[in-house]
Structure formats: C-alpha cells, structure tokens
C-alpha cells in the first residue's frame, strides 16, 4: 500500500546514508525484525523491560548507527527474548511484525476471547480475516493480563488448524482394528448402546466420565450432569485430580472455600512475596511479569523450591531467600516457618483472636511449638539451613503485606493436602488474608482447572463444592434435573483405573484429557485402558489415550465454540466462537447428543442457557450471566446478591467457613525416598514454550525452543556416573525405565534430577509411581526415587511405545473413510 500511494517517492532520493539495506532478522518463527523500517524510538526496549521484565533488547551504537539489538547474540531466536510479543505490539512502524500478518494480510474484524493455555486466563483479541485467525493480540482491557501475553497465547494457536486434526467421528470394535469413520448419529448411538450394555452386564457403577480442565465451564458442567443424571452414578472426575485437588481440599478445610483468595492485581500491593513450588516465569508467564514489576519496585522475595528457578535471580530481581529444600519436605519447611513465627512472638494475635477458631488454634499451637518442628531439628531432613529458614519466617511475618503464591510443587506430593493446609495456617497466623496485597494464591495449571472444579467435576461434589451426601443440595439438583441421584461418592481417576483392572469399571468417556501421557505410572494407566470394553475419547487429535479408544469423537478448539473459562483468580471470562467447528459440532453439543442417545434428554440452544442453569443452582454463581459478562468483561465469583459485580478479594470480614480453622500438619516423610538402589530423587516441571502433554504446542513452531525433554543432573552426580552433557541416560524407578538426553545443570542440587514431560516418547510418567496424596489421591509427581546411568539405546518401554504408536498411526491412516462409502 505504501508503494501504491507514493510514500516511497522521497524528495532527495536514496543516495545518502540510510538503513534501507539493513538485513531482516527472520530467525524468530513468529515475528520479523526489519531494521530498515526502525526509527529507534526504543518503545520495544521499554516494553521488554517494563512490561515483560526480560531485558532482552537494547539500543546498540550511537547516533546514526543506533540499532535495536536482541542482546549480544545478534538475532532474536538465539537471544534471551521469550517471544511474549510485547515489543511487536509496541512497535509504531512495521519493524517488528507478526509473520502471520505478512503472510495472511490485515484482519477485517476482531473478537474478544480468552486464552486456552494456563490458569492466568489472558483476554485476547482474535483478529480475523473472515473465519481465519490472522493474529492474537492481548486485550488491553483484559482484567487478568492488562494487554500482556506470552509466547503460547500470543503465537502458538496454529494447532487449531493443524493437519493432524481429526474432524469425523470414528469407531472400532478392538484397538487392533482400523478406525471406521461414521456419522455423528451412528457414533453417539453406538456409544450409548455400549455404555448401556456395560451397565446391564456389570452394574450401574461400571461406567464414568472425565471432564476437562481445558474445556469450558458449560462443557464440564454437562459431562458431570450426564454422568450423575444420565449414567446414574457419580463416577466423574477431572484432571484437577492430578494437579490441584489438594488445593480444593486444603483450603476448604481451613478457610472454607476451595479457591485462591485474591485477584492477580493484588500482587502490586504485596511487600513480601513467597513463591512455593511454582515456576511462574515458565508456567504462568503473564502473572510472572506482574510479579517481576512489583519485585523491581522493591518487594521482597522468598523462593521455596528444590531448583534454582529463574525467579531466584533475574535482571533487577534477586530473591532475598531461596530455601532450596529436598523434594518431599515441604511440610517440614512450612512447619518450621510457623514454629519460628510462634516461638519468636511474631504471630498476629489480634487477628487470630478475632477471626479464627481459638480451640483449633490452641491445639495447633501446642503442636507447632514441639521441638521437632524447629528449623534446627528439621534442617537435616529439609536441607535448609536453620538460619535462612528463620530469616525467611521473620521476613514473611514482619515485612508488611505478605502473599503466598504456590503451584504443583506444593500439591503433587503424598502430603500435598497437608501442605496446602500448612500454607493457610501460615497466612492466618500472620493475618495475611482478607485484604489486598496478601493471601493464599494457587497458580492453576490449565486454563479452566478452577472452573472444572467449581462445576462439580469431582465425584463427591456437586457444583459449588457441595457434598453429594447433602440431602438438601441433592434434592435441589434432583428436581432441577428430573433424575434420581446417587448419594455415595464415585470413583476418582486413579480409583477408576484400579477398578478397571479389577473388572468392575469398563466404560469411560474422556473429554479433552490425555491420561495415558499425563497421569503417573504409564504402564498401569495403559493396562487399565486396555482392560476397558468401551473407551470414548473426545479430542482434537489422536492423543495417547485415544490410541486405546473404541470411539473417537472429534473435539472443537477454543476458537470454535462459545462458553466461559474460570482462571486461577476465580475470574469467569467469555470464550467466543470465531470460526465454525471443523467437525460440525461444539463439544457441549456432542455431550447433549450423547445424553439424548442414552435416553436422558437435554435441551439447550446455546451455552448461555447452561450458564443460566448453573447460576440457578449454585449460590456462588447466582449473579452470573452472559449478559453481565458482556457488560463487565469478566466476573470473579462469588457473584450473587451480596456481591453483584463479583468478589476480587475473599474472606474480607470473615472466613467463608465463619472462623478460620488451624489444622495440625504433622510432617511425615514420603515413602518415596532415596535408597541404595534408587539414590536420586526425580522431580518434574514444565518450561515456557511447551504446554503440559504438548498436544497443542508440539504442533506449533514452539518446538524450535524445546523439541525434546531432557534430564537435568548436577555435575557432581554426573561425574560419579561418567555422564557427559548430551549423553543418553537411562532413568529407572520402581515403576519403570526411560531414556533421555542428559543436561548438566547446577540449578538443581546434588542428589536431585529434573525433567519435563511435554513429549510422549520421553515417557517421564513411565517412571513416576502410584504414590499419591493421602486426602485426594493427587499423584506424587514431584518425588520419585530413581537411578540414572549411561546407556546407548532407548528403553524397552520406549521401543514398545514406538511400535504401538506406529501401529496406531497406521490404523488411523488406513481408516475407512465415510466419503468413500457414499
């Protein structure tokens, strides 16, 4: 266009010195840097520093030679740039430009929607050309992200139209048969008939469903309704089982509500931030940018983590304390912190007296003051020097507003629920709850973990965290749903798998989950899946679980449906359809279809009607409607008559349960401890560019940053085993063995090894065991005793996996096409 209207015709010609021949930097897969268009305004440099907090960009040279440079490496891909896109947004010329715009052209309209990656739940403008997405731009009015984004939400959406998408329903009798494409009617009728057959043969409790934390509230609500009212049992669970179920249990016991206490903006008023078992710069990058901004302003930082995560030391950020504990000793550390605060007289006595149950407090106080809970007594077990621990405790108790942010490093332990209660104890003990800048903040893994839990996905709870045995609640739902409900709790995911091997659970409907990759002890999971008579998987792709399925129902991505997600701060945001579903049905319509085929009719014309039903039946959602969401942009529940516009901060006047309840949290070492046979402790985590099982991000250019999972090992442990950087190493636990490439790293302490789990071939979960949280069965992903040694070939499991994968891809490729029959 510039050429067409004559903008390139300059008065003095092109003879003098200029930058027109500046080489373009095309190294980043998502955006280009064209130095010839740069006016060196520095907005990109400021965006990188002030908005993202990475400090990857600088202005090199002076005067006419001034150039924007991505650090000393010279190109964007090799630099410290994290591809958040903030510089691209800030660029007033076309110097920094999304490649998708260069390829597809300018958008013609935009729709506000919500990212489907992590629990931050960023609001985005999906910029469209007809029904094609050409760019995702973070929404400046977004209440969770305020116009910021990360590489995943901003750029990694190409999976939605990836060639691997399966768009037609398929069925097969055995998993060794080729798939057969069928109509929606046939697929749903077949599934209903199979589930009825299994129930007739093995009992009503022989089937169940798994809802997805990646799907919308409306979709998860419908699945649990289908299971409870249609199947007539309570065998419904969600992947929150394997991540944040201890949060739900622990916070309910102590504070009275299974949710975080703050909004994200609250961190900007925190004076002390304690991050426990979370890696926000990788797992929750947009929240991490808010946090880093506050830390640059001078807030103090305590990191409790076995690894030296990025947050420990960053440009202009240095943790005041890094309590580098041994994996599995969280509860010891939290008890030692509380012991210090009580014994040194730093407790908020007035707050406790006014707000907490005093009998429970006195009992807890007697427990916590036991000498066994002192930092000195626990130093050997935790590996944390008593002096540092006491210093951290004093800072948390006396440093002003103190906020705790935690992740799966807290929950995924045999004492996960105990640790969550320990965190709540600590916040109550210091009065750090009920106002801005403080609180207990679980960082949720997936976009809709909070929502899937809110919607009654757990087998023992109806929507709004009300126990299934409660007669009043059950009667309410029975009359609304016109069905008799079972009063006993159903099976949780690990129990479903055990029951499958036991022969009493043989039909499972899995929506948008991949338990064959994401759940622990893979060989146990796949044995259970193989034992099922009817496994139904609804997903975008033929994921690992679908390779064991008898029915495949194609799913729709977040771009193809209407609904809502609820993020880690209880914020309900709209997901809006920007393109028609590739398979012809939105996920909620598929569940409705299945329910109708089963003979339990559901009648919804639009997801807004499902939300209206949720609001009618759930006291914390009474005031929520699509109309109000459109008006306000987003709403933090509880939203009802007492809080018509939602609740940013919880427990302000009093705790949801009335009086806050201190719980006795005795430290019990996990049974998964290092031995002579398995002397190292394996812990797991994620990285910035990949997302969980990787089904989405592996199908984007994000794999340029992380194309395989590697094993981080301390140089000392490596040397003892003759392992060099880049060697293949076998990692063996009592559950299984896999082989990864080694990376020598001093981020971890001697005795500990670390890996990610984004690629199925890595088999990280072949090694993890069936050990789980005592209260919720949340698996102990974060501690597995292993031995590591040099090897020359993949493990036996990996060889079998490759063979099976090849067979299943072949059965997919040779599927009987519906069109060829016509």
């Amino acid at each position: 266009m510039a050429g067409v209207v004559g903008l390139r015709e300059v008065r003095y010609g092109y003879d003098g010195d200029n930058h027109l021949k500046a080489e373009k930097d095309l190294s980043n897969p998502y955006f280009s840097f064209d130095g010839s268009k740069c006016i060196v305004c520095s907005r990109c440099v400021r965006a990188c520093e002030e908005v993202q907090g990475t400090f990857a960009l600088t202005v090199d040279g002076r005067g006419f030679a001034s150039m924007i440079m991505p650090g000393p490496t010279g190109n964007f891909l090799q630099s410290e740039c994290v591809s958040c896109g903030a510089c691209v947004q800030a660029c007033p010329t076309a110097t920094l430009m999304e490649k998708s715009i260069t390829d597809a052209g300018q958008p013609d309209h935009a729709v506000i929607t919500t990212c489907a990656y992590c629990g931050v739940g960023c609001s985005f403008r999906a910029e469209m050309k007809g029904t094609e997405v050409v760019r995702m731009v973070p929404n400046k009015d977004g209440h969770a992200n305020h116009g910021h984004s990360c590489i995943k939400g901003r750029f990694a959406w190409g999976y939605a139209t990836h060639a691997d998408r399966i768009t037609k329903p398929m069925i097969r009798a055995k998993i060794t048969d080729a798939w057969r494409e069928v109509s929606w009617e046939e697929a749903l009728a077949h599934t209903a008939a199979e589930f009825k057959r299994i129930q007739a043969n093995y009992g009503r409790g022989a089937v169940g469903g798994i809802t997805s934390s990646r799907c919308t509230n409306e979709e998860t609500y419908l699945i649990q309704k289908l299971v409870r009212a249609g199947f007539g049992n309570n065998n419904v669970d969600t992947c929150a089982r394997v991540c944040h179920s201890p949060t739900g249990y622990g916070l309910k016991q102590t504070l009275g509500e299974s949710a975080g206490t703050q909004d994200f903006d609250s961190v900007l008023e925190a004076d002390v931030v304690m991050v426990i078992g979370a890696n926000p710069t990788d797992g929750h990058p947009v929240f991490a940018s808010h946090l880093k901004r506050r830390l640059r302003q001078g807030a103090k930082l305590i990191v409790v983590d076995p690894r030296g995560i990025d947050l420990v030391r960053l440009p202009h950020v240095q943790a005041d304390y890094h309590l580098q504990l041994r994996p599995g000793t969280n509860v010891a550390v939290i008890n030692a912190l509380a012991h210090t605060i009580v014994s040194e007289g730093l407790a908020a006595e007035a707050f406790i007296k006014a707000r907490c149950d005093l009998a429970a407090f006195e009992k807890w106080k007697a427990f916590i003051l036991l000498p066994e809970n002192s930092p000195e007594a626990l130093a050997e077990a935790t590996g944390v020097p008593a002096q540092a621990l006491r210093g951290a405790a004093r800072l948390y108790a006396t440093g002003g507003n103190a906020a705790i942010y935690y992740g799966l490093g807290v929950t995924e332990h045999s004492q996960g629920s105990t640790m969550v209660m320990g965190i709540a104890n600590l916040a109550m003990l210091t009065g750090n709850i009920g106002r801005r800048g403080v609180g207990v903040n679980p960082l949720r893994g997936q976009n809709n973990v909070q929502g899937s839990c809110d919607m009654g996905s757990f087998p023992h709870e109806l929507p709004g965290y009300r126990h299934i045995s409660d007669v009043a609640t059950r009667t309410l739902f029975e009359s609304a749903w016109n069905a008799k409900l079972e009063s006993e709790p159903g099976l949780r995911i690990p129990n479903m798998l055990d029951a499958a091997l036991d022969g009493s659970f043989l039909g499972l409907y899995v929506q948008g989950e991949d338990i064959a990759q994401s759940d622990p002890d893979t060989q146990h999971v796949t044995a259970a899946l193989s034992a099922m008579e009817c496994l139904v998987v609804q997903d975008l792709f033929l994921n690992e679980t679908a390779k064991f399925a008898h029915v495949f129902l194609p799913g729709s991505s977040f771009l193809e449906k209407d609904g809502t997600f609820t993020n880690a701060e209880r914020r309900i945001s709209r997901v809006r359809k920007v393109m028609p579903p590739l398979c012809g049905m939105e996920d909620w319509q598929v569940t409705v279809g299945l329910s109708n085929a089963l003979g339990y009719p559901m009648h919804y014309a639009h997801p807004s009607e499902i939300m209206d039903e949720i609001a009618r039946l759930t006291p914390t959602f009474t005031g929520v409607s699509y109309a109000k969401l459109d008006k306000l942009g987003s709403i933090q529940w509880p939203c009802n008559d007492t809080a018509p516009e939602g609740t940013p901060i919880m427990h302000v006047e009093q705790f949801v349960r009335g009086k806050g309840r201190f719980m006795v949290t005795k430290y019990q070492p996990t049974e998964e401890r290092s031995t002579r046979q398995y002397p190292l402790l394996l812990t797991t985590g994620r990285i910035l560019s990949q997302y969980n099982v990787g089904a989405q991000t592996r199908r984007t250019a994000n794999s340029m940053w992380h194309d395989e999972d590697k094993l981080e090992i301390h140089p000392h442990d490596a040397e003892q085993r003759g392992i060099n950087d880049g060697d293949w190493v076998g990692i063996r636990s009592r559950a299984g063995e896999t082989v990864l490439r080694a990376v020598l790293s001093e981020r971890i302490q001697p005795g500990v090894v670390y890996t990610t789990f984004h690629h199925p071939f890595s088999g990280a979960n072949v090694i993890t065991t069936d050990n789980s949280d005592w209260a919720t069965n949340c698996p102990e992903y974060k501690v597995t005793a292993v031995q590591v040694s040099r090897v020359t070939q993949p493990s036996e499991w990996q060889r079998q996996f490759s063979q099976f994968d090849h067979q299943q891809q072949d059965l997919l490729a040779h599927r009987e096409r519906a069109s060829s029959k016509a």
Partner: protein
Amino acid sequence: MDASKLVHMANQIGGFFAADPDASIAADGVADHIRRFWDPRMRRDLFKWLDERNGEGLQPLVLQALEKHREKLQPAG
C-alpha cells in the same frame, strides 16, 4: 480392588489424623474422610479385607476407626 492399595491409602489417611492428640477425634476423622471420599466398592473391599484377613497391615488407628464406624461406613442401599 487391589487390597494392598486400599490398605496403603487407609493408612495414609490414618497418618494425617493420628497427629490429633485426642484418639477418639482422630478415629472419627479417619472414618469421616473415608465416608466422604471413597466409592462404595472401595469401602466394601476394605471391610472385606478387615473381616477376612483380620485387617492385616492396617494401622491401629485405622482399625479402631473401621470398627467404631462400621455401620456409618456401610454403603447406602
């Protein structure tokens, strides 16, 4: 279901509630937790283990809880 797993899980629950200085409250806590979170077939199989194998491997607190609350822990229906 795999009885050894059920025994292990029950003992883990016992481990948490054992921290309560009042043994009676601890036993109630164990029973209440199992009642609220365990599917009926898991409870049935645990009692089967208790009756047929004399609760082999179960911690004293868990045994006490199961005996004390046998009726309450029976699945409805």
